[in-house]
């Protein structure tokens, strides 16, 4: 147990609580990642013409593979069009994937001998972005929370008790807030209800899709604190999807960066934020706005807009905006590399891999180093 703790906590999270052995739902043990995703792909067809035939396709998610380890928070960042929202829905099986497999705690999802969808839904839940449509406007929030347990067979009175207990856990007094309607609540309160609803089925993993993006900054901080508290006390694993780099840095243990449907970089949060390996990640991090007016940016780190996901560039999809693009980048798509290890830091870039044919390959440890090489 102590041995596991040291592996889990070194080198970057000395205060992380390891997953307790007594968790009755745990089937695969500590080393088993809670979720493994393999070669997930989703192309959306574009239909047009008289017979609505398939004219092209939007490559929303293209051969994405990663793992989520028990007890960690995996942050997924990317800009619009990178496919992270589609990825969230693929993970939750809200939309069917074209190819790919998911393995939850050692059991394949959807297979005959593995985990059924219904069982998966008891283990994995999603918190949506706060919007006017995230809660049923005609139900008191108590009933919205109790709906999940009722679907799985719980009696009405018991489900109501569960709902009230959850309201308490997310910081809303049940007597005061239970019978209110969504339009009577503020954004932060609605988001707490969203979290409570996701927790109603006692899941082991929460997928948070831009869960705090629509909130005011001051309320955002409250909800993030709540999420941290809940994670510690309910033994949860988070997949936190956001476009906000600072929020992801604060809450994540590992970070996955997506660009145009592919994973371009994955690794521990500190490594990624201090020494990014992929040019896109570096540009993204440099685009963050500093709170010190003396440190204003004079030049934008990245020019242009992301290209079309309908016809992405051949080879490496980032090459059209990359300062280091060479011929090999158009020929071959760079591989990400093995990354189930908790401390592995990988980037899908020819510069990172030795013998890739890129003039700077293998010699630059980080993109800053590559800048040095060039000059």
């Amino acid at each position, binding site marked *: 147990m102590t041995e596991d703790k040291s592996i889990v906590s070194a080198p970057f999270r000395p205060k992380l609580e390891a997953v307790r052995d007594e968790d009755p739902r745990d089937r695969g043990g500590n080393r088993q990642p809670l979720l493994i995703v393999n070669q997930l792909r989703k192309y959306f067809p574009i239909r047009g013409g008289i017979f609505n035939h398939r004219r092209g396709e939007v490559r929303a998610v293209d051969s994405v593979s990663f793992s989520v380890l028990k007890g960690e928070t995996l942050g997924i960042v990317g800009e619009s069009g990178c496919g992270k929202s589609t990825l969230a829905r693929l993970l939750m099986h809200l939309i069917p994937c074209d190819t790919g497999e998911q393995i939850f705690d050692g059991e394949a999802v959807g297979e005959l001998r593995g985990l059924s969808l219904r069982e998966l839904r008891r283990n994995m*839940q999603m918190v949506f972005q706060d919007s006017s449509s995230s809660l049923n406007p005609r139900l008191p929030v108590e009933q919205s929370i109790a709906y999940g347990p009722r679907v799985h067979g719980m009696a009405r009175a018991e489900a109501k008790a569960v709902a009230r207990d959850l309201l308490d856990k997310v910081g809303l007094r049940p007597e005061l807030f239970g019978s209110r309607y969504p339009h009577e609540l503020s954004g932060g309160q609605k988001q707490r209800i969203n979290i409570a609803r996701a927790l109603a089925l006692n899941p082991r993993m929460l997928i948070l899709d831009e869960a705090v993006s629509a909130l005011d900054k001051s309320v955002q901080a409250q909800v993030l604190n709540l999420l941290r*508290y809940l994670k510690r006390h309910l033994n949860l694993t988070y997949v936190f999807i956001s476009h906000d780099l600072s929020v992801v840095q604060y809450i994540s243990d590992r970070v996955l960066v997506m660009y145009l449907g592919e994973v371009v970089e994955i690794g521990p949060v500190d490594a990624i934020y201090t020494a990014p390996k992929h040019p896109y990640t570096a540009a993204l991090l440099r685009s963050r706005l500093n709170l010190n007016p003396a440190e204003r940016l004079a030049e934008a780190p990245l020019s242009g807009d992301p290209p079309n996901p309908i016809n992405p560039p051949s080879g490496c999809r980032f090459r059209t905006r990359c300062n280091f693009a060479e011929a090999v980048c158009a020929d071959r798509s760079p591989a990400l590399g093995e990354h189930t290890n908790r401390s592995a830091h990988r980037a899908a870039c020819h510069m990172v891999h030795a013998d890739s044919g890129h003039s700077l390959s293998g010699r630059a440890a980080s993109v800053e180093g590559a800048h040095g090489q060039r000059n």
Partner: protein
Amino acid sequence: MTDVISTDAPALRHGLSAPDIKVRSYLQTVTHRLRHDPVTLFFLAVILIIALAAICAPWIAPFDPNKTGTLYRLKPIGFRGFILGTDELGRDMLSRLIYGARTSLVMGLTPVVLATVIGGTLGVTAGFHGGRVNMCIMRIVDVFYAFPSVLLAVAISGTMGGGIQNGLIALTLVFIPPLCRIAETTTTQVRSLDFVEAARASGASSASIIIHHVLANAAAPLFIYASSLISVAILLAAGLSFLGLGVEPPTADWGMMLSNLRQAIYVQPLVCALPGVAIFITSLSFNLVSDGLRQAMDVRA
């Protein structure tokens, strides 16, 4: 932990109370709004009076509506105990109007209720499943939609022969398409909302989602539209009777009364206009009440 206490607690620290939102259920909110809407309340009362009169017709009608009297044909208002005059066969107008209310209300409400149930079910099914099912149902409905409602009602009723039953069937068929369309549109909208996705994510079956989430949200627009159709139904029913395709004589019916009294308009104009006035008032009342309900039932504050 400070972040887990209820969010309005810090306000109390300084002796200030948090803004007080009274917790009201949806039904209470609707009732509260209705209570403060005088126009709607007034016309609601009118409808209730008409309905009561129709129900209690045997007890409150002063005369037998079918008893003719050739001596007293087309007498004016107030003539010897006939409070509203008599028609072309000497029957008491007031009694016939009261009994006519029965027919009109039945012919107005029944088709709408039936069409709401049938059209609503079809629409929700089409909207929820989308794809081919949607295409099938909606294209068939569109065929019916292509005809103007009056012509359609007349055509169906005429083909089946006249009579109340066929008239009801015709009117129901006429009203199914618009109600189906409304149900389909709202269901399609609601289906793509986040909370429906969340319901699916919790493992609910389609039936459960439809019943608990979709129906509640789609029902309100459907109900409001249906209530606005009642006034149309009353008019159409009167029209059918006017053309001789509705009730059979001697049953009292406002439309038929209008038709029969047409020639006598130069003799006793006021009396002849009375059935028309009755149709107008009833139709208008339903229309305004449905409007008021629509405003009161709006979920947003």
